[in-house]
Structure formats: structure tokens, C-alpha cells
């Protein structure tokens, strides 16, 4: 895990464009779950490290282009600014998946 790109993004969904395809929840379950009607419930905690690739993939795959990625400034220790997004049901603390390797 040495050469981490030091970028972080905040995952956001445009609710008007969203049509409940659910690809984002499949690709980034650490940040997106689906409500009972299939629409995404997004955790506003910034995405960093390995997960950025999945967030980017989710944004590319969304058939309605409803995923918006906001760049988040990264603080010196490599920790992204952690204030959760105002939208959505508040920032839940998502357990770190640092040790779990997957291929985007």
C-alpha cells in the first residue's frame, strides 16, 4: 500500500438524474446502500485509497450520469477532510477496508 494516490473524493448522487439502476451500490457498497425502492443512500464520508478507483468506475458506469465526484482536499497526514456531507442521512462511520484488496 505504499504508493497511494493522495486524492480523495466525496461521492454524491444527483437525485433528479438517478433512475435507480443500482450500479453504484454494487461497485461501492462501502458508501452506497439502496433504500427499499432501489434508490441510493449515500454516505458522505470521503473516499480515498483503493476505493477511489471504484468511485470513478461507478461514475463512469452510471447509465444516467447521476454520480458526481467532488474532490476533497487531503490534509498533510494523508487523511482527507472528514466533515460528512450535509446531504444524506449524516455521515456514518464506515469501517476501514484498507486491508482488503479487490480489483476494480
Amino acid at each position, binding site marked *: 500500500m505504499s504508493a497511494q494516490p493522495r486524492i480523495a473524493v466525496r461521492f*454524491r448522487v*444527483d*437525485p*433528479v*438524474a*438517478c*433512475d*435507480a439502476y443500482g450500479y453504484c451500490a454494487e461497485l461501492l457498497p462501502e458508501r452506497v446502500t439502496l*433504500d*427499499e*425502492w*432501489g*434508490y441510493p*443512500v449515500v454516505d458522505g464520508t470521503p473516499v480515498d485509497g483503493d476505493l477511489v478507483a471504484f468511485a470513478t468506475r461507478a461514475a463512469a458506469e452510471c447509465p444516467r450520469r447521476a454520480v*458526481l465526484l467532488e474532490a476533497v482536499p487531503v490534509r498533510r497526514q494523508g487523511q482527507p477532510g472528514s466533515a460528512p456531507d*450535509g*446531504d*444524506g*442521512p449524516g455521515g456514518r462511520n464506515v469501517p476501514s477496508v484498507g486491508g482488503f484488496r479487490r480489483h476494480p
Partner: protein
Amino acid sequence: MSVTTLATAERLLFVDGGAASPLDLSGHIATHGAVAIPTRGDHSWKAGMFRAVAESGLLGRGGAGFAAAAKWDAVYRDPRRPMVVVNAMEGEPASDKDRVLLTYSPHLILDGAEVAAAVIGASEIVICIADHNGSAASSIEAAIGERRQAGMTARRMSVERPPGRYVTGEESALVSWLNHRPALPILRIDKSVPLNVARRSVLVHNAETLCQIALIARHGPEWFRQAGTLEAPGSTLVTVTGAVRSPGVLEVELGTPVAEILGRAGADVDLSAVLVGGYGGAWLDASRLATPYAPGPLADAGATHGVGVVIALPATSCGIAETAQLVRYMAGESAGQCGPCVFGLPAIADDLEQLAIGRADVEALDRIQRRSAVIVGRGGCRHPDGVVRVVRSALEVFVADAMAHAEGRPCPGYDHPTVLTFPESPATGRRSP
């Protein structure tokens, strides 16, 4: 200024001999005095006027409550050519104040629009009135005609008639309609970037806000702050309906206790609760009627200032039934663009209706709470948030009723026709090119 010794704040509406009469141009000048609005204001005038509005602390009267000066700042900084849009749509069914202002003080609205236009350098003003509000539209058109005849032609003024749905009063929906698109809200990521109509940046103000601006232009910010509270200065229009003897539109200082507002409208029956802020506002228990009608105190009480609306619910009515109908209506007024609102609101309405008639299952209350929590903040506009606020406040204020209903014992009042009324909604149309 002490909040307890409020007299009627008589600034926007002058009532003489028990009735108000519409003010034509000469009557308007006789009542309010004249104000000099330059055709092309020089920088010091603009700066002075901007400072006056900023120092007045005027908050928007359209429901969102943004500081008026902040909006001016955003539009002024935008490099595109600006225009002013007057939002007199009155999307809130329980409110009548925009129509009252259009009928009785149209020149005050136009003065405010001209002041705003002069400061931001706009040469066009568009007044938006709901398509079903014909008399108000005639009134403002007559006023525009008077001004033209009097040679006050510095800015181009026109009247538009978008469809009168609940969401068309929302700023971005209104602007969408002016852009020949459906009158539905759009997602705004950065609220500091102004909306645009045909590539011109747009300053949107509620009609009442503009009236206040017109008065600030005449009398200055210190005068403005003589009424109201420190955080929420000035007067505001409140529409009082429900179990009151004289329903209608009142002008009060911000910070007036709700009980006093009700008193002036002639509330004389036992009330169980009061709906404040509109159909997207919140219920206030009868024990909390001393709460001042101002953003801060109302928020502390779990309610919101919203649009000036107070609806008195008599003790003989059923708050759960009223809320059920409200949610059903608001579900129908959804713009239909975002899943959580489109599916969530009807689902909550279903449960509330079953609860109202005492046929809800044991999970109903939990389901309502759960769904409320999950849909809040996830729409493209604040429509579902307002409904959730009403629902949550209902379950708190009418908690005893809710429990009884859930156990299959609806209160006797559920069978009465509701106090809240709902207008027929025309279909959403498009602006004709």
C-alpha cells in the same frame, strides 16, 4: 424593542376604517411617500443601497429565509447581464399574502423590484404570478400601466403566468419554466452561483421581500430594525386560517407570539395544536403558543418560520387525520423527479391514512419514522424535507392520539372533514415561446 408590547406593525398594509383598499400610484405615493430610484445608479448610490439592505438584516420572506443582501452580492459578482424575477407564485396553498400584496400594494412590489434592479444593474423585471390568479395579475398589470404613463420606464416590466403548482414557486423550478423547460426544480450544487434565464443571471425575490426592500429604500435600515427581533428584524405577513373567527392575512412584527397572532384573528375555541410555516412547516402544540413567530424560536420548538402561515386546529379535530391528508396532497404535488420523494411520500401517506382510521398494523408508526428518516435530504429540492418535518412534529404533538389510533381506537374527530383544505391543481404546462 420589547417583544411583548407589540402594536400592529403597519408598514406593508395600511388598513383604514376596517378595510383596506388597493393603492393606485397616487395613493401609493400619498401613503408611503416617493422614493428616487435612479435610472442608472452611480456607484455610491448602489453601494449605499446595498449597505442599507445588508444592515437591515432583511431575510427573504418566501420561505427559505436567506439574507437578501447575500443574494444581491452573488448576482452582482456574476459577470453575466442580470435580471430581476419577482416570485409572486404563492405555491403554498395556506398562504394568501402574495395575492394580497399584488392586489393592495402592487406599487410597493414594483418599487422594490426597481431598487433591486438598479443596484445589480438589471434592465428587465419579470413578475411571475400563478396562472389561476387572474385578478392579482390584472392588478399588477394595471400598476405597470400606470407607471408607464407616468414616465417611469427605466426598466422593462412584464408579467408571466406559470402554472400554479406547489413546486413551481420554488426558485429553480420557476427559473426552469422561464427557460421554456418544465416547471420542476433542478439540483443546485453551488447555491452561490446564480440561476440564469437565457444566459442572464437572475435575482429572484419573493414579492413581500421586495416590498420590504422598497420600505428600506425610503426609511433606512435603522427604521426597519425598529420592528421585529435582533436576528429577524422587520414585519411579516402571516395568513391565519382554521378555527378562527376572522381568517385572513395579518401584518405582524417578527417575534410576535403565536398566541397573539391567533388572538387578533379571533381564536376562541379550544385548540389542540397549530400548524405554522405552511404545509411544509410543522405542528406546534397548544401548550407552546407563547413561542414567538420568528425563525430562531420556532426552530427551537421543532418548527420552522417558513412562509407566514398559522392554521388553528380545534381540539375537536384529529391531528393525525389532518396530517394524513396533508401528506397525501404533498405526495401528489411532488415534482416526480426523485425516487425517495416519489415513492417515499405516498408510502408514508398510506400508513398515515390507515393510522387515521384506526386500521394500521403494529409496524405502522415504526415504518413512518423509518421512512421519514430515510427520505430526508435525498431529494432534489426541500419538498420531502418539509413533509417529513410536518410528519415528525405530528407524531410528537399528537403522540397520545397516535398511540390510541395505533391500538385501533381512533379519536372521534377523525371522521370530521379536515380543517386543512387543498386546492385543485392544474396540470403542469410549458411556457409558450
